[in-house]
């Protein structure tokens, strides 16, 4: 069994597809359909274009602060591909690809980073919680989703994602401990992208790996090559099955790298060396996955080029639509504080409305 073979203190990292796209563990290659594999790849390809363009829009002053995802596509999509439709994602904030795979529309994701809460109003059947900016707290929310699933016998698993920096947070420990004590179906996927803004992973904890923190909860843990989408899928699938069967949580550490800045406000050249980034560029998860698909005869360079063009125009059009939404209404910023506006809120809303009318605004 995978979790036994890769017990964190054995100091082994789980990998199926190496950086060059070779199957190093062919016996563990998942039996995914061509359709699923292409859905995974196409999500990553769209995510990459959307990510790069978001940065450009921000630099043009058209988009607000945005957290780049480039380099983490496999760690996100590989994990999400292992979920069933009714499973939950309780995300952190650097989750573009994970959210796209789970059915959140790009238009909504862009709208949120454009500065509009309607971007968090996902379609009703989308089992994704909104972008969470408060580090670590989403693990508690996922623990609650998992607890409800257990007592209502819903058979759903809750997956929380968190950064390496987030594992320093109390809520990471409280949420995992809470879910573990009830065997609630929770899987936590750490996106260890090596940097918490300017703080390297090595300075965040004395623990050699983040996966070994699983021992404290009495649950399985595994460190995975987060840029290997096949390993991410296999490890998460095993974890989700294990949690769904009533065994309790699993902790996955995806070792990956944030190739871009923390956010558009950050300059990573201050705190990390070019050589480090270049070394990780070679381990780009897109390169090896594309090679794998081409080797299997599922994909061609020509199709890849066509897809990129298609994505470029789709993303451009999507952002244009988002830009056209303009400002929110006054009513919207009041209306959702409670189910019904309180007398105080009604009074404040009416006051502001009248003020704007009188000022001719």
């Amino acid at each position, binding site marked *: 069994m995978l979790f036994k073979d890769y017990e964190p203190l054995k100091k082994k990292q789980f990998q199926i597809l190496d950086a060059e796209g070779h199957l190093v563990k062919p016996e563990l290659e998942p039996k995914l359909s061509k359709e699923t594999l292409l859905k995974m790849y196409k999500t990553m390809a769209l995510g990459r274009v959307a990510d790069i363009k978001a940065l450009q829009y921000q630099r043009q002053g058209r988009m607000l602060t945005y957290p780049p995802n480039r380099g983490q596509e496999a760690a996100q999509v590989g994990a999400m591909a292992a979920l069933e439709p009714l499973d939950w994602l309780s995300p952190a904030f650097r989750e573009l690809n994970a959210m796209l795979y789970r059915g959140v529309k790009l238009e909504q994701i862009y709208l949120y980073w454009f500065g509009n809460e309607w971007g968090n109003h996902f379609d009703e059947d989308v089992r994704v919680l909104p972008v969470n900016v408060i580090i670590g707290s989403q693990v508690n929310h996922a623990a609650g*989703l998992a607890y409800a699933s257990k*007592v209502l016998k819903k058979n759903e698993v809750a997956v929380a994602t968190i950064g390496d920096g987030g594992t320093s947070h109390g809520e990471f420990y409280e949420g995992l401990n809470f879910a573990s004590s009830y065997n609630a179906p929770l899987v936590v996927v750490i996106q260890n992208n090596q940097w918490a803004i300017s703080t390297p992973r090595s300075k965040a904890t004395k623990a050699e790996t983040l996966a070994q923190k699983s021992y404290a909860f009495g649950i399985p843990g595994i460190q995975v090559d987060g840029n290997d989408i096949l390993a991410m899928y296999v490890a998460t699938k095993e974890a989700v099955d294990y949690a769904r069967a009533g065994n309790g949580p699993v902790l996955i550490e995806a070792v990956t790298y944030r190739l871009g800045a923390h956010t558009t406000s950050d300059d990573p050249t201050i705190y990390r060396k070019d050589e480090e980034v270049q070394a990780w560029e070679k381990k780009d998860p897109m390169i090896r996955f594309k090679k794998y698909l081409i080797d299997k005869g599922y994909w061609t360079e020509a199709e890849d080029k066509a897809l990129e063009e298609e994505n470029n125009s789709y993303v451009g059009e999507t952002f244009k639509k988002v830009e056209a939404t303009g400002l929110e209404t006054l009513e919207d910023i009041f209306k959702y504080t409670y189910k019904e506006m309180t007398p105080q809120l009604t009074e404040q809303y009416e006051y502001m409305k009248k003020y704007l009318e009188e000022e001719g605004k």
Partner: protein
Amino acid sequence: MAVLTLLDAINQALDQKMADDSRVVVYGEDTGFEGGVFRVTAGLQKKYGVDRVFDTPIAESAITGSAIGMAINGLIPVAEIQFDGFVFPGYTEIVTHMARYRNRTRGRHGLQIVVRFPVGGGIRALEHHSESIETLLGHIPGLKVVIPSTPYDAKGLMISAIEDPDPVIFMEPKRIYRSGKQEVPEEMYRIPIGKAKVVKEGTDVTVVAWGAFVREVEKAIKLLENDNINVELIDLRTINPIDEETILNSVKKTGRFVVVQEAVKTYGPGAELISIVNEKAFLHLEAAPARVTGFDITVPLAKGEHYHFIQPERIAAEIKKVAKF
């Protein structure tokens, strides 16, 4: 009709809502097997099982944070924090998420949650067991904050809180958990959140209090019997949203206004209530409004708390000053 303590009345409300709605779960530190350190949840685990009434690890942020996920995924959590001062480790989830979720998702996820805990001083307890933190919760948009003063109100407010579509902070004045009983109807009934109650009508001075201090003001009123001051006493019952109408109607009649709060003085609810009166009933005032409050200090331990906690005599003295202004 059964005669119940405030504690029993809350227990009955929880019991009846759990029987009424299988989505309701009750949990917290020592809340399940033991029934809580005050026994507010006594007997519930036996009746409804360990999945619906359960003990948690000592982790307040997991208690409040998991409530969010539970509410999104089909449960109605009634989460207990063991003491007022222990709210703070769980405060981040309340303020940064619970209060904001409906707005953040533009109505996709409203959170039907009750967070309940004993509040206030007067039981000679350890540090962090005697805090009055209504300002710290009443100040947060998206939360409703209630505090009952009688067994009857406690039951009706708890039922309303559990049925409310938004997160409700339910503060239980621990010093009157067991002191004083009242007839409480067996059937379920509701006290609306956001409505104050005129406890005693009067013509000379409006006094607003809540929780354990409604009774302290009643004692003060007795002390004033020979002073010919006819006090109108209002029990605020809900800290947020404030029932301005009841307060303003009263002040317009009496022209004088006193607020009694156990909480420390600065930025307390008294300041907010006096501002409302100043803004909306200024020309009706015949005296400067007054506050009778705790001091801006850390709640003293047992040997010093008598200075900090408000006695009926101090309330009576302040009412007298305002009446004779």
